[in-house]
């Protein structure tokens, strides 16, 4: 996550995220400018292939600069900003989302890059996600979640590989 670390003033996630987004936006705009300037200029019509990348790249940098100018004074002064929703008890909300994302990336990475077949990988992923989200791992939960995950994963896999012939 490009989110700014916890050095930001407390309880200002909206602002830190906005700064992260602005930085990302500026980087992408710069990339479009650099790559766009390497495209040969047009001879066939006056605008050419490079015009949109260059114009949009410049626009992005301009907007990002404007946003940064609006955000930075507030951040530097450390004015308390809008409050976040009530924090979850065990894990900070941001970390929960990041963990769910990491779990998903791990699942896709394993299924796409290693010989782990799609169906068992997906069943394990679903089980892990359910346990993580519901914060349960007791027998009653497993009795329900294991068949649900396995059924869902194998059912979908069979449907899409046998009926629709995707090479999952």
């Amino acid at each position, binding site marked *: 996550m490009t989110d700014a670390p916890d050095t930001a003033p407390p309880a200002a996630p909206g602002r830190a995220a906005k700064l992260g987004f602005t930085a990302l936006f500026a980087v992408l705009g710069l990339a479009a400018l650099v790559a766009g300037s390497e495209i*040969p200029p047009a*001879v066939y019509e006056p605008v050419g292939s490079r015009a949109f990348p260059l114009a949009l790249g410049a626009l992005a940098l301009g907007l990002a600069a404007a946003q940064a100018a609006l955000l930075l004074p507030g951040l530097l002064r450390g004015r308390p900003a809008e409050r976040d929703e009530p924090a979850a008890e065990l894990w900070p909300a941001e970390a929960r989302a990041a963990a769910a994302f990491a779990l998903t990336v791990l699942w896709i990475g394993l299924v796409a890059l290693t010989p782990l077949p799609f169906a068992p990988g997906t069943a394990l992923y679903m089980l892990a996600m359910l346990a993580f989200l519901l914060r349960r791992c007791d027998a009653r939960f497993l009795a329900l979640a294991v068949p649900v995950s396995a059924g869902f994963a194998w059912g979908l896999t069979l449907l899409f590989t046998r009926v629709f*012939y995707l090479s999952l």
Partner: protein
Amino acid sequence: MPTLKAALCATAIGLGTAIAGPALAEFPERPVKLIVPFGAGGGSDGLARAIQAGIEKHDLLPVPFVVVNAPGAAGTVGTRQVLGAEPDGYTLLQIHQEMFAAAALGRVDYAPDDFEPVIQASRGCMFVAVPEGSEYRTLDDLMAAAKAAPGGLKQADDIGSATHFPSAQLMSQAGTEWRIVPTGGTSKRFAALKGGFADLAFMSTPWLTRGKGELRPLAALGEERFPEMPDLPTAQEQGYDVTACLARRYWAPKGTPPEAVEAVADAIEAAMGTEEVQAYLEASGEDAAVLRGDALRAAIEADYGSYLDVLDVVKATSGQ
């Protein structure tokens, strides 16, 4: 859990075959996958689905024949998938000259030589069209106007596509150049002609009837006249050695065993005779044009050669 067991079994078998490699006896023992590098619903997809239906309904292969759409980047996304596939005959590609266009322009790092041609199935020739109200009544009128004002005429087309190359052939035959207005597929070209934003376009045969009263055909771009419009002379008859026909061909990865190529080609050739494929040809205005083996190789070489010949003209009219 029988499903689970079955699925595990299936995966194990699948893994086993993958490890055992291509050179097993009795070629088709699992589904044959045909990659169509264009979206569902287009002409390429139409033929592929018709061939699939023909093969399945008439049991022309002992295994399922599966069509997979892998569109993107003018057909190169799907083409790359076949390029990188195991050369075992289980992964095939169906594409027309768009592959030659991408290779000739150097947009990709592969060439037709990197594939094993399997069979050519059908061909659809285009015609030269001008708007009904146009002042040009013959191809000669049009070419004279092009010569009188080089760069003045506008042709609705796709830059760098499989129809840009035959357009360039016509330009070099007429000894002049005109501009390509980038529009898109045939229906967009039709709109450009109708709105007066272009002077000419290459159109596919269904537009002979669909564009009646709006389009004036000037020349057929095949070797022979269209049966549905026998009065329309070909460009060759009028002294311009140009043809523009999309030939739908099947390819396998380089190194695919000849037996596998033969087995698939047999099935596709047999499918060409089924009512499913005939219905497709009827609707699309294409003709069955089966070519195999050396005849196919020769046709591909001539085709790709003709693309390379006009590469400079194509580049000159793409603004590069």
